[in-house]
């Protein structure tokens, strides 16, 4: 308990809020690394995931690859990369991208795949080109799940970006590693608390975004259908298949 109070005291110590290596500077570095990783990983994973979800081809491959990537220990990968690339941000960024790929990939393909195939078929039969089917139908309807993937990837990146300090002088992890080395456990715990708070804050932000991207027509489902609904309202679309007549 004492340690926790010391950690909180450390966080609120004005000396830690100014100068080189201050808390605000570390937070900005942490966010910069996380954002870089998220952008790179999204550029790789989202197009592939969308292709898989739209065409239904290569799904087995995507599942295998993302499962395999998930099993890679990030710290081990980071050590390996650090030894071959050297000190600096490159190695942690690559390791974190590998970490972020599976949830992004899964979100993208599950998002597009979740859209009712009858809706997609109707869009095509009306004369939409494949690009338009993706852009006007599958993306808007699958967006909540895609954002869910981004949310889960971001949470993992922000939490794990502490490892960047293992190999570079960057991010909130710096407090943890420095505190460990100097046996300043208040600093170490203070740094951990900051990482946790940052991760929770960003996750909360994504929770709000995820709610906002649910298309209006999907939210507007009539309340009287609640009785016959087996599960909670889902973001994804399509009329539930029900027996008998719907009126």
């Amino acid at each position, binding site marked *: 308990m004492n340690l926790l109070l010391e950690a909180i005291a450390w966080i609120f110590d004005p000396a830690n809020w100014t100068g080189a290596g201050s808390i605000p500077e570390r937070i900005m570095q942490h966010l910069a690394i996380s954002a870089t990783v998220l952008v790179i990983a999204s550029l790789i994973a989202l197009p592939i995931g969308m292709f898989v979800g739209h065409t239904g081809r290569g799904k087995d491959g995507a599942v295998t690859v993302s499962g395999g990537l998930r099993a890679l220990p990030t710290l081990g990968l980071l050590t390996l990369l650090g030894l071959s690339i050297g000190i600096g941000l490159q190695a942690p960024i690559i390791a974190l991208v590998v970490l972020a790929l599976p949830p992004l990939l899964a979100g993208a393909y599950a998002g597009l795949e979740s859209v009712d195939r*009858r*809706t997609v*078929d*109707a*869009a*095509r*039969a*009306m*004369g*939409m*080109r494949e690009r*338009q089917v993706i852009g*006007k*139908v599958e993306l*808007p*309807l699958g967006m909540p799940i895609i954002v869910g993937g981004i949310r889960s990837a971001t949470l993992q990146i922000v939490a794990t970006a502490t490892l960047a300090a293992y190999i570079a002088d960057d991010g909130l992890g710096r407090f943890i590693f420095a505190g460990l080395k100097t046996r300043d456990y208040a600093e170490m715990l203070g740094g951990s608390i900051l990482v946790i708070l940052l991760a929770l804050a960003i996750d909360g932000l994504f929770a709000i975004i995820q709610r906002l991207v649910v*298309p*209006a*027509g*999907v939210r*507007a*489902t*009539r309340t009287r259908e609640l009785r016959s609904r087996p599960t909670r309202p889902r973001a994804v*679309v*399509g*009329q539930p298949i029900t027996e008998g*007549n*719907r*009126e």
Partner: protein
Amino acid sequence: MIEFRGVTKQFPDGTVAVAGVDIVVPPRKTTVFVGSSGSGKTTLLRMINRMVDPTGGQVLIDGTDVATLEPVALRRSIGYVMQNSGLLPHRKVIDNVATVPMLRGEKKAAAHARALELLDTVGLDRSLADKYPSQLSGGQQQRVGVARGLAVDPNILLMDEPFGAVDPIVRSELQQELLRLQGELGKTVVFVTHDIDEAFLLGDQVVIMQQGGQISQAASPAEILANPADDFVADFVGANRGKRALHVTEVDGRRLVVDGDGRPAGVLAS
């Protein structure tokens, strides 16, 4: 005019959905393909707008083989109404109706103005324009589906079991509505159903399909009832089951029409 010439469809897994179909769909009339599941009727319909390409034979629209036409442009020129309406759930009714005109590059204002007129045409109140499909009843959704099919004023309207998922009362309303619309607009309607009563009600020409994707008989409803081509057709239309073997009996001075089982089917009008 739509013409099927020796059309065959075999899916990659070996299933033959359509086997050598020859049929002419006359212009400005309603042709109904009727048959049970697996008789290839939907496959035939979807060949017209190239949602399915035949593995043999040709489909011609006004003498042009559709295989030579670009699928997207072809589909945008043909109305398509499907079961469960197929409306885009994230778009308002008016945007759903205006979808195809806007895909063809029409301005939003013009497309929306026309969409409102189409809501009138299909008997929907204009106040529904800003609702989402999930806020409408099944019958209303189906009407929106028809309005969308008519949006580019196509010559051909394809209807794939459009009234299959609504209750009998609404279905009968929609059927009457379609008859009225067809009387006013005179489109070439190709309609698919498994309900023989619906087929006889709506069809100028009724095409009875049997398992394996072959045509058993194609004729007017009266002719099919008068001269069923074979036992399958007779059985399918119910002529053998007494459902349509009606006769007249007199009850309390009124002449009733009763079916083969003695159940009253109606009153004979004088």
